[in-house]
């Protein structure tokens, strides 16, 4: 565990991970009740990755990811109410109900989506890094992808340009071992995604994505590298999603034992809680207070997502262009 983690930081990290966990559990319930529809990809199990990375970012840094994005948004400090209301397709959602689970953004929090096309977020993130460099704002872009996206051609086009132009981007590969139903063994010749930048001289490393401290340390090294003008960095995190690829996936391609083993022995929140109590000597009642606050926050988000009205029918024809589009 990094020595730099203060009690306050630890409590925040625990709170953020727990918020994601509880938020996603509720989202799953709302999906079952028919209040959330379509594609909905839960982040449960991977919480330490986004929370660890976010904990080392600076205000000007930008974040972009694919469609398993609820955790990223909550880690970016976006309002859980706005995220949940977007999941239920209501006007109080971040995209006013027009984006859904996969398409949410917050300029205020420098979160740039929320992209539904596997891998497409990677060149876009590279472009955000291009803008950081162009504007000389010392910002870094975190461009996240899964092991599945890591085989898309545009990822390598991005690596090449980022290395060529020394762009301040950290490519984060959240290796949860399955691209939908296809295991990394069946999808990838050579499973070391972090080493795939070698040909371009991009440094890479792999860390345990279930241990917040390891994520944090690796993310600090990567962002320091990118921020210093040395160019891109690849981080691969070994992680696991407890649920199926999306809500409609029964995940029959892996055994119950495999999932249970991770839940019991490698759960990122349990691990961090133990660390807080045993090493940081944080008291149980402080943790309990966070548990209660998170529960309340999520319940408020659920309530908001149910009561926020659906978008007005007139919203169908807004936001197509920056100016109002005349109907033909």
């Amino acid at each position, binding site marked *: 565990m990094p020595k730099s983690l203060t009690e306050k930081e630890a409590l925040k990290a625990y709170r953020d991970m727990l918020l994601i966990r509880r938020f996603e559990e509720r989202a799953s319930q709302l999906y079952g009740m028919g209040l959330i529809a379509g594609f909905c990809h839960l982040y449960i199990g991977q919480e330490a990755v986004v929370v660890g990375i976010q904990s080392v970012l600076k205000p000007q840094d930008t974040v972009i990811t694919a469609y398993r994005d609820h955790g990223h948004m909550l880690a970016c400090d976006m309002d859980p109410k706005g995220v949940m209301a977007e999941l239920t397709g209501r006007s109080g959602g*971040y995209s006013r109900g027009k984006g859904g689970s996969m398409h949410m953004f*917050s*300029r205020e929090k420098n979160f740039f*989506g929320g*992209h539904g096309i596997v891998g497409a977020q990677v060149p876009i993130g590279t472009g955000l890094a291009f*803008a950081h460099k162009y504007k000389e704002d010392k910002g870094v872009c975190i461009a996240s992808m899964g092991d599945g996206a890591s085989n898309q051609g545009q990822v390598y086009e991005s690596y*090449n*340009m980022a290395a060529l132009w020394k762009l301040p981007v950290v490519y984060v590969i959240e290796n949860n071992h399955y691209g939908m139903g296809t295991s990394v063994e069946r999808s990838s010749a050579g499973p070391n995604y972090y080493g795939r930048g070698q040909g371009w001289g991009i440094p890479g490393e792999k860390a345990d994505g279930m241990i917040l401290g390891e994520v944090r340390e690796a993310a600090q090294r990567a962002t320091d590298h990118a921020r210093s003008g040395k160019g891109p960095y690849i981080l691969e995190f070994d992680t696991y999603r407890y649920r199926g690829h999306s809500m409609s996936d029964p995940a029959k391609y892996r055994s119950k034992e495999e999932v249970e083993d991770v839940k019991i022995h490698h759960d990122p929140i349990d691990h961090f809680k133990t660390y807080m109590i045993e090493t940081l000597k944080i008291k149980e009642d402080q943790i309990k207070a966070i548990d209660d606050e998170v529960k309340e926050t999520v319940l408020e988000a659920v309530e908001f997502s149910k009561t926020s009205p659906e978008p007005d029918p007139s919203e169908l024809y807004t936001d*197509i262009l920056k100016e109002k589009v005349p109907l033909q």
Partner: protein
Amino acid sequence: MTTNQREDILMTDSSLITLSVREALRDGMAEEMTRDETVFLMGEEVAEYNGAYKVSQGLLDQFGSKRVVDTPITEHGFAGLGVGAAFGGLRPIVEFMTFNFSMQAIDQIINSAAKTLYMSGGQMGCPIVFRGPNGAASRVGAQHSQCYASWYAHCPGLKVISPYSAGDAKALLKAAIRDPNPVVFLENELLYGRSFDDVSQDQDYVLPIGKALVRREGKDVTLTAFSIMVGKALEAADRLAEEGIEAEVIDLRTLRPLDVDTIIESVVKTNRIVSIEESWPFAGIGSEIAALMMEHAFDYLDAPVLRVTGADVPMPYAANLEHLALPQVDSIVEAAKAVCYRT
């Protein structure tokens, strides 16, 4: 300044100069890059080579390598990078060496650039211009000779411009760069070297996107065209005049949003219309115009709408077959006479 005011200037303003379309596009980019530090140009061979078709001649010298960026041959990647840069507060001009290669990048143009404003409930916006030569050049075969007008015009969230003259090319490219939305700007290789005496030197002069131009007035039949086909339509109008048919030629200039009002106004007068385009007939711009005339001008039509299009085949290489595959003045004249019930 409105379009009509400009037409007056065209007659009287001695400040208009003669330039090739290539030079006009270059000047348009240079002026906008001078005006706005966030505008930059990227693409294959745009910098040190001065552009595969020399459209970016001299821009590297003028603005430096930070703002005129040679990319690797990696269309999908640099189109997406451009979108990200636009999200990040810049105003990229992304040059495709030809629009044929934009198919490598079409996901980023449509899914990322065009749809994100909507998907974000109005938060994001993507001020970017994708530009380059579109359509058939000469003897370059099927993969390098395709018109993407209807492909991109199909998609909400995009604006699609395809100018004919040098003055329009400059003023519309400047408008596209200033526009807060993603714009697909379809040029034409064969027009690059053609000169027009309609280029404004006023750095603040831009044309409104979405306004067509009546390039020739006539009372008997309306001809709509864009890009290089405007020239063919004007030639056809000359020939028709010799036979006593006065054709009105509308240069569409913008394909999305299409200036339907100007077309309807013309058809109300002429009662006949022929659409001309170099792309394939099926689901093309002409198909859209035919449908729009059914919806908005049915009672004014004295003949069915006719389309003159490229042949419904991949572009052949052989000179004679290529000629047959592209709309020619003869076929435009023939179609115009057909809707006038003249033989």
